[in-house]
């Protein structure tokens, strides 16, 4: 039994990478993941990745932030300790607008970003799950689970035909950062 | 004016159209560059113990002798009666030799100050700004000859 865990197809060019994905999909080779130094437009649809729901999270957080601020100001100025400031109305809604808006934005930004970090398992000190160090620099990497049905040689030839500059058979899933 | 809460942004003074607010630029009572009553064991007796000396960085203005107002209110409370008009005299009013200053409760229509402010001679400085100040002035009557006639 081969000790290879993952087969990596390493490409120089994102268009070659997309071509490689097409060929692999035509040959029913399941793709584990693709790593790139920059986003590739069109790859989500090709790989069948569902749309991100972060937008909905952002909206919810924004509504929450705005509501909290408005309620807080209402409670403080109208309910708890109304103060006669220059004879003005206690419930001066126009004056509440700037701070409500600011907290809507703040909660949207922080809520969404922390949700992003949480969902993607990003946090300071997290050991990076990287399969090839050049994937953050100048190479585009397709990772295929070697324990699948397709023989390794076939996978190699598909990748080479598509234009891979290198094909790697890795015993370790991820690169060690020790 | 809640001195305790003042963080000294001087925004209130900037906005004051009358420019009556004063800022404590230094710790006058504790700064050797300034001559003040606190420095000397005798002159410090001149200072009014009811009036706090503000720390640097705090804004202040005429408080309408708030210490006298509070003292008057306290006296009335102890005696279980409402405040009488003219009971509280602000220091400037008390010392004015011409009786030119009247102080009292503007919310009480029977007080001397309310009646004075209701007079035809009353005007307010920068009236057009509609800041509705608590201090009104009265115009001097000039056409005395017509009045006598």
């Amino acid at each position, binding site marked *: 039994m081969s000790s290879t865990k993952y087969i990596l197809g390493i490409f120089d060019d994102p268009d070659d990478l997309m071509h490689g994905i097409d060929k692999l999909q035509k040959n029913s080779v399941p793709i584990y993941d693709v790593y790139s130094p920059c986003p590739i437009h069109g790859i989500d649809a090709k790989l069948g990745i569902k749309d991100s729901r972060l937008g909905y999270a952002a909206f919810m957080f924004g509504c929450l932030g705005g509501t909290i601020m408005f309620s807080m100001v209402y409670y403080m100025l109208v309910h708890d300790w109304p103060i006669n400031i220059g004879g003005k109305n206690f419930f001066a809604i126009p004056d509440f607008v700037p701070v409500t808006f600011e*907290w809507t934005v703040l909660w*949207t930004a922080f809520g969404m970003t922390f949700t992003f970090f949480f969902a993607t398992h990003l946090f300071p000190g997290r050991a990076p799950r990287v399969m090839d160090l050049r994937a953050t620099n100048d190479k585009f990497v397709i990772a295929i689970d070697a324990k699948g049905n397709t023989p390794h040689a076939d996978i190699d030839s598909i990748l080479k035909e598509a234009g891979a500059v290198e094909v790697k058979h890795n015993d370790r899933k991820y690169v060690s950062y020790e | 004016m809640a001195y305790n*809460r003042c963080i000294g942004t001087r*925004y209130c003074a900037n906005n004051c*159209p*009358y420019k009556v607010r004063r800022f404590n630029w230094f710790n006058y009572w504790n700064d050797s560059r300034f001559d003040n009553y606190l420095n000397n064991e005798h002159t410090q007796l001149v200072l009014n113990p009811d009036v706090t000396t503000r720390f640097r960085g705090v804004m202040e203005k005429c408080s309408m002798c708030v210490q006298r107002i509070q003292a008057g209110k306290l006296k009335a409370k102890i005696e279980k009666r409402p405040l009488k008009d003219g009971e509280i005299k602000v220091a400037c009013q008390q010392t004015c030799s011409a009786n030119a200053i009247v102080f009292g409760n503007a919310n009480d229509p029977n007080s001397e100050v309310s009646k004075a402010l209701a007079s035809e001679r009353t005007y307010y400085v920068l009236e057009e700004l509609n800041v509705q100040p608590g201090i009104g002035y009265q115009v001097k009557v000039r056409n005395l000859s017509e009045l006598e006639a």
Partner: protein
Amino acid sequence: MSSHSESIIREPLITGENITYGQITDDVLRPVENMPGKAWWIGFSVASLGALLWVVAISYTFWFGIGAWGLNKTVGWAWDITGFVWWVGIGHAGTLISAVLLLFRQNWRNSINRSAEAMTIFAVICAATYIGAHMGRPWMAVYSLPLPNQYGSLWVNWNSPLIWDVFAISTYFSVSLVFWYTGLLPDIATIRDRATGLRRRIYSVLSFGWTGSVKTWQRFETVSLILAGISTPLVLSVHTIVSMDFATSLEPGWHTTIFPPYFVAGAIFSGFAMVQTLLLVARKVLGLENYITMFHIESMNKIILLTGSIVGVAYLTELFIAFYSQAEYEQYAFMNRISGPYWWAYWSMMTCNVITPQLFWFKKIRTNIPLAWTLSIVVNIGMWFERFVIIVTSLHRDYIPSSWAMFYPTWVDVSIFIGSIGLFFTMFLLFVRVLPSVAMAEVKLILKSSSEQAKRKLLESGHVEPAEAEFYINSLGKFDSVDQSSYEKV
């Protein structure tokens, strides 16, 4: 989609031959991965001296009191709030570049947004130092927050623009920081994967474990777009709120509804000028001419022209309305600005802000780097004077003549200002050493479609209309990083 070719008549955003993805990484990370050169050391020394001056002047103020400044009972704000508004205004361009240009799908933002956003963060830090410094009792600054307390829980005055400022500036700083840092994650990962030893461990912690997988990139782009979408109204609101500090007051010359758009346009104007001041030097010293090209420089100058014109129109509107309203205090305020004791400040402002940006109508001036750099400094000087004129001339002679007074700065006022510039440059120079000053991932995204080499390949393939090809080749003349003569045979 930016991964496929774009029209040939669009000017290239990345110039140079044989620029590969790896080349981009190498070029951008050169200052990060190598020892600094002489230019950096000279800049850093001067900036640090400035920062030291700042520390001295602020400490002096903190110890002795606001009386160390030239302020008096009439003029309660002068260099302090001028400096605050100046710095906050400068910061707005960074957010505009990152956020608004992303929403408008302007790919040219990709190489300048990282430095611009860093500039925003440092500028807002400098602005925040002014807020702390100008308070009479900064150790009680926490009273501006609505925290439950023992005064019967005395809350803050939500009707005051100063409280709106607290929330606006803090939100602006934190959202900018989040936007900047999230965008930095892939680039920090790049540094991490090329580093060894302690450097690798530090960058690994800073990278949050970034992998560059498909789902991560998808979410990254969603987050960037949404942050851009909310940062745009945030920028507009923050400077509007800052302008409300003046607009909601009664002072003649302050109490005007034109302030919100006037301040926002002015902020973008001075911010882009500061970006030019920084990047025109940085691109030369750090060898980034291929990524920050003449197209970027000219586009920024066009924005300076646009916003400068808006500011100019605002000045003229103010003058006209002062006359047309026949409001005597407002009229005097402007007569005083034009011909009173601070006339020289007003006319500096007018010259620097109204006349000099109009020079950018001329292409020869727009595409001349030394001139553009000089004019960017002139613009920022003008914008400082604008805030000074607004604040001091309105305060020093307002409603009641017996209160009129002059303002003169003390050495402390001047030192804090110059020191804050030193502080800003110290932070920026450190940034340039430690983090990539160009967003590598975003530039790599547009390499295949918008680079000079991709367009050259397109020309050589012969599938381009001759008229369009000629137009394109002509437009390359202004680029200092392109050899136009090499196109003769194409």
